């Protein structure tokens, strides 16, 4: 395996864009990324796309060549990866493998989702299809319901409280308010978060991430050639993907995600680092409880202590280990297929010192954790300067 670097990033804002098609969004992010990496289209040797449900949301299939040809990437292999909310994390993992193994020198990875053209109940239906069809979807299980059941069990076993969950939402909204590309740039109070409308008991509207449109892209390059494009490459120290069963009822313990622990262990080993060495992280807060469990599964805090840690400020902008400085899925937005690559862009923005009002000090080592479904896929990426 040889070293791999990120030489360019590009993102659209996340939000509701009725006049932008899935192609408009993906092409905008891709063009920004190529420009940011000083790479003309003809230097790109392959295209990897993360997208969860383009065919269901907008009726367009065969999305990878649809987008790559619009970007002027003539003739290159173009492939779509689907792993629910970890779709573009998975695309990134496979793109990294292709460069690390020496097959390609320069590849473009993008993620895109166009969700807001469908009514909420239809969006819920499409998202639910990432669950187990026979035992979960048929019974009416939604993702808010599954994470509500996870939250309730976590509360029962560890004493996690509604206030702990709300603290995640308050923190991420405070960060997102400082991010010009965030979907919801609005701080919220603890009272608002606690009094939100119930979606699936004990989760309220404020525990759930947003339904967004958006795209993100990164340009990967063989480490030895990165200097041809940029003086500021960010090194990919590790990336690992792991999987688990889809059905929540088939997991031995739903207060921890086996795929997260497995991907994290591999990634730490590959990077030669431990959780203590991570300066900051973008974690998959599809629901507030997911950020708490991710902190535990990644070893940032001991099991059961994620809730109190968030409430104490451990993971806020000025805390010991800032988490989701971008605002996370909760406030920045969650265009499902764009989320994994979006998290990686957000790490790079911090590492380049371009995060403006939300800039933190220690950014030498950053970690992104991208989760699919109720934990059936996880991709963990560690970046360094």
């Amino acid at each position, binding site marked *: 395996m040889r070293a791999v670097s990120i030489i360019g990033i590009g993102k659209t804002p996340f939000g509701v864009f009725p006049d932008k098609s899935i192609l408009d969004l993906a092409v905008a992010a891709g063009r920004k990324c190529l420009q940011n990496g000083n790479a003309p289209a003809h230097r790109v040797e392959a295209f990897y796309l993360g997208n969860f449900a383009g065919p269901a949301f907008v009726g367009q299939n065969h999305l990878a060549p649809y987008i790559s040809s619009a970007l002027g990437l003539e003739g290159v292999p173009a492939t779509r990866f689907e792993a629910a909310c970890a779709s573009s994390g998975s695309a990134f993992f496979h793109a990294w493998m292709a460069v690390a193994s020496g097959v390609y020198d320069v590849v473009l990875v993008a993620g895109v989702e166009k969700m807001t053209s469908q009514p909420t*109940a239809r969006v819920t239906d499409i998202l639910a299809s990432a669950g187990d069809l026979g035992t979960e979807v*048929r019974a009416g299980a939604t993702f808010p319901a599954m994470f509500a059941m996870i939250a309730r*069990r976590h509360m029962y076993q560890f004493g996690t409280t509604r206030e702990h969950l709300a603290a995640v939402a308050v923190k991420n909204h405070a960060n997102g308010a400082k991010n010009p590309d965030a979907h919801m740039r609005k701080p919220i109070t603890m009272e608002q978060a606690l009094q939100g*409308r119930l979606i699936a008991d004990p989760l309220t509207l404020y525990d759930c991430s947003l339904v967004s449109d958006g795209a993100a892209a990164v340009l990967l390059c063989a480490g030895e050639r990165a200097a041809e494009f940029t003086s500021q490459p960010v090194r990919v120290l590790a990336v690992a993907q792991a999987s688990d069963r889809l059905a929540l009822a*088939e997991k031995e313990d739903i207060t921890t995600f086996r795929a997260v622990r497995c991907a994290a262990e591999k990634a730490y080993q590959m990077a030669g680092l431990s959780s203590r060495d991570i300066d900051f992280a973008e974690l998959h807060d599809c629901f507030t409880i997911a950020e708490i469990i991710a902190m535990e599964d990644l070893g940032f805090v001991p099991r059961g202590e994620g809730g109190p840690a968030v409430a104490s400020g451990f993971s806020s902008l000025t805390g010991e280990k800032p988490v989701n400085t971008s605002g996370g899925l909760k406030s920045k937005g969650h265009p499902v297929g764009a989320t994994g690559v979006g998290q990686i862009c957000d790490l790079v923005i911090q590492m380049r010192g371009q995060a403006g009002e939300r800039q933190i000090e220690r950014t030498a080592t950053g970690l992104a954790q991208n989760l699919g479904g109720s934990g059936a896929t996880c991709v963990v990426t560690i970046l360094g300067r």
Partner: protein
Amino acid sequence: MYVSSPGYCRCGSQEFRSLPGSGRGQIYTCTTLYAAAERFEKDLPFQLAIVELDEGARMMARVTGPAVGIGDRVSFVDQRDGVHYFSKDVTG
């Protein structure tokens, strides 16, 4: 009858057989839904739970009747369209 997803065993054996269940168990975790996918909106609000059967297996199920919490005893009451329904034991 409960049909789980295809079985697997670390030893690689394909010899599985069905066992009759008592239809009794307890709530491992649960929630009440106030928002649902479009085809289930007519059922709102409704309770979903992971029931831990006395035989040890866990299954996703709907819970009808009174509200349940973790640890409550429940019994199987019905199966419709592949969905299993449980309700809280009166003496539980």
